[in-house]
């Protein structure tokens, strides 16, 4: 077996079996599951708002009785017809609130009373219904015909169309709620990218610092060329990323029929709701782009983290070593969230092409449909070129740092490795 494969296998298997990696793979699924369970739990346990609608005036009683007994906003306690009964029921927590309708000088008035510890009353729904009642009451009093009343009450007709432009500049219709979906997807992409990038960067930095700190690095580098060892580690991390994505693909393929067969049958409302939304990317290859950005992004941060990990002498210092990198990732994350929320200023537009920021920002912008897929591919190409350059720069510094032990701070370690590099170059000159 080649020495590259030995290093690759060791790094791959060691991390594959580690708790950190298993958690990293499972975390998004666990969060998804917890979110789903909580949502279902809330929906299942949610009680309707119990209200009583009463009036002390007999002439208003038929109007009050005509109001719906149950709708999406509340459930009426129809047996309660007087304010005294309503008060008593409220004190016994049988009601969340009640409304008293009165009329004075032909003007209707509604008083709401709600329980502080109860569910909030759906004021907008109730107001709208009482307004309707008031109009009916006034129309009858003024002896307006039903048709006249209909004409008077007819609202202005409005239509809303939201469009997104595809790569060919053609407008595609979007559901009015699409912006919300885009924001959710873009935010999720930013959060997941940030999480994976920081975890893989932390993993490689700790790996390098631990091997250096325990002097395992010395044994390894007395058996193998440093370049082979470096690439073995980096490719092992790439394989871990691919494994993680593979797990999601497999779970997605297995999970899809489960969702379509069981979930949609059990909750037809979910099916009709999802059919209204177009998940960005599924149709136009953005998903592939996002996956590639994930790989390139993680690899870019990984090679830099390996270099930074080689600057320190103990595993405890590894997180400190990658702090500058974390700050860049946090910046990219913040910009990604902003992009997901529709912020589209020149700074966001430009940084979506800047390597280290683009792996988070560009997929978020593409998901938010603020950036075309072809611009996304261009940004990816720039990131790939920079990744190759950074790989070689990191390897040069890794080679200089990895067997240099120092108790000094990161900056001094950096300067020391720079001195070693320049000395080597001087020595290699004829």
């Amino acid at each position, binding site marked *: 077996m080649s020495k590259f494969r030995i290093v690759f296998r*060791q790094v791959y298997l060691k991390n594959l079996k580690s708790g950190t990696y298993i958690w990293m793979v499972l975390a998004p699924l666990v969060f998804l599951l917890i979110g789903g369970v909580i949502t279902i739990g809330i929906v299942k346990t949610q009680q309707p708002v119990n209200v009583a609608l009463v009036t002390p005036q007999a002439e208003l009683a038929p109007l009050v009785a005509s109001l719906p007994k149950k709708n999406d906003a509340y459930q009426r306690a129809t047996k309660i017809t007087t304010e005294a009964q309503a008060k008593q029921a409220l004190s016994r927590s049988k009601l969340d609130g009640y409304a008293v309708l009165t009329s004075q000088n032909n003007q209707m008035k509604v008083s709401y009373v709600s329980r502080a510890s109860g569910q909030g009353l759906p004021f907008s729904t109730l107001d709208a219904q009482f307004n309707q009642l008031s109009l009916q009451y006034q129309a009858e009093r003024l002896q307006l015909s039903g048709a006249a009343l209909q004409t008077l009450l007819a609202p202005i007709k409005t239509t809303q169309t939201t469009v997104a432009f595809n790569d060919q500049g053609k407008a595609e219709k979007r559901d009015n709620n699409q912006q919300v979906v885009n924001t959710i997807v873009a935010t999720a992409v930013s959060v997941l990218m940030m999480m994976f990038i920081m975890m893989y960067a932390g993993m490689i930095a700790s790996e390098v610092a631990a091997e250096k700190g325990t002097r395992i690095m010395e044994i390894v580098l007395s*058996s193998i060329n440093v370049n082979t060892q470096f690439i073995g580690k980096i490719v092992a991390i790439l394989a871990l990323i691919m494994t993680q994505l593979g797990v999601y693909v497999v779970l997605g393929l297995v999970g899809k029929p489960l969702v379509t067969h069981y979930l949609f049958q059990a909750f037809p409302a979910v099916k009709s709701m999802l059919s209204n939304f177009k998940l960005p990317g599924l149709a136009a290859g953005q998903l592939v782009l996002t996956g590639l950005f994930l790989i390139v992004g993680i690899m870019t941060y990984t090679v830099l983290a390996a270099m930074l990990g080689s600057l320190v002498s103990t595993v405890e210092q590894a997180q400190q070593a990658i702090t500058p990198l974390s700050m860049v990732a946090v910046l990219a994350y913040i910009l990604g969230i902003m992009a997901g929320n529709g912020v589209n200023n020149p700074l966001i537009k430009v940084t979506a092409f800047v390597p280290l920021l683009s792996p988070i920002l560009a997929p978020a912008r593409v998901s938010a449909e603020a950036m075309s897929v072809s611009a996304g591919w261009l940004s990816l190409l720039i990131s790939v070129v920079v990744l190759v350059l950074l790989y070689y720069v990191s390897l040069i510094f890794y080679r200089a740092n990895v067997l240099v032990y120092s108790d000094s701070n990161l900056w001094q370690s950096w300067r020391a490795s720079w001195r070693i590099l320049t000395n080597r170059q001087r020595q290699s000159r004829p």
Partner: protein
Amino acid sequence: MPVLMVHDLVKKFGTMTAVDHVDFTLNPGEILGLIGQNGAGKTTTFRMILNFIEPDQGQIRWQGQPFTQAQYNQLGYLPEERGLFPKMTVMDQISYFAELRGMKRATIRAEVPRWLDRFAVKAKPTDKIRDLSKGNAQKIQLIATLIHHPKLIILDEPFSGLDPVNVSLLREGMLDMKREGAAIIYSDHNMTNVEQVSDQLVMLRQGEMVLNGTVDQVRQQFGRIKVYVETTLPQEQLAAIPGVVRITPRRHDLELTLADEAVGREVFKLVTAQGYLPEFSQQPPTLEEIFKLKAGADHE
């Protein structure tokens, strides 16, 4: 042909010279002890041999050739600070290091139990490293250094932290590898070990080579300036002999340090004047004494 030839090696860190014109050669089946105080340049010398750092001057030759990747599998290296993966099993840990030295997995798996037995390691191949005692973990690292039967073995303070039983096992292990034809270079502070296993000795002081040769040659350089004598004569009478530099009483006898080995004859005459004498021995100084003498010069 020597396995290792180190010629005129110089390494500076800033203004500090860590290794200063060091020369030695090591043949197959030889053990070289590299001694010196902490910071004398031993580990820096090892790191240059291992190609971890480049010398500012001088040459290192492996079997007459510059160091190349081809030599990786012929080398065994035990660093000064021991390091193993705590979560790995004994078998996996040894396998990883041995595979990096070019051994086949099947061969390693077949040989590990024999090596564990040879070094009396109280652990099974399936035990995790983190569950081992410090001594056993050290022996696992030593096995990982030797299992591929390297031609050149570099051991940086291998006896450090071992109890006397394990010191003896390690010493035997080194001598076995020597008998197999391996060349061994190691550093140590314990002169008893150095005296017992080394064929050659190099002492560094502030990077400079202050001693070089076989153990006997090094000791003979100082002459037989030590006399161990069991006598009833008062110490004052012995101290009065010109050339007796110091008298150190020991449990049963006296240790006399002489300015010159010829003074031994005067001492002998005086102590045998009354006839029978249970002990009189004139010897060169021990390595321990030479070490202190040479290292002490550092502080003068």
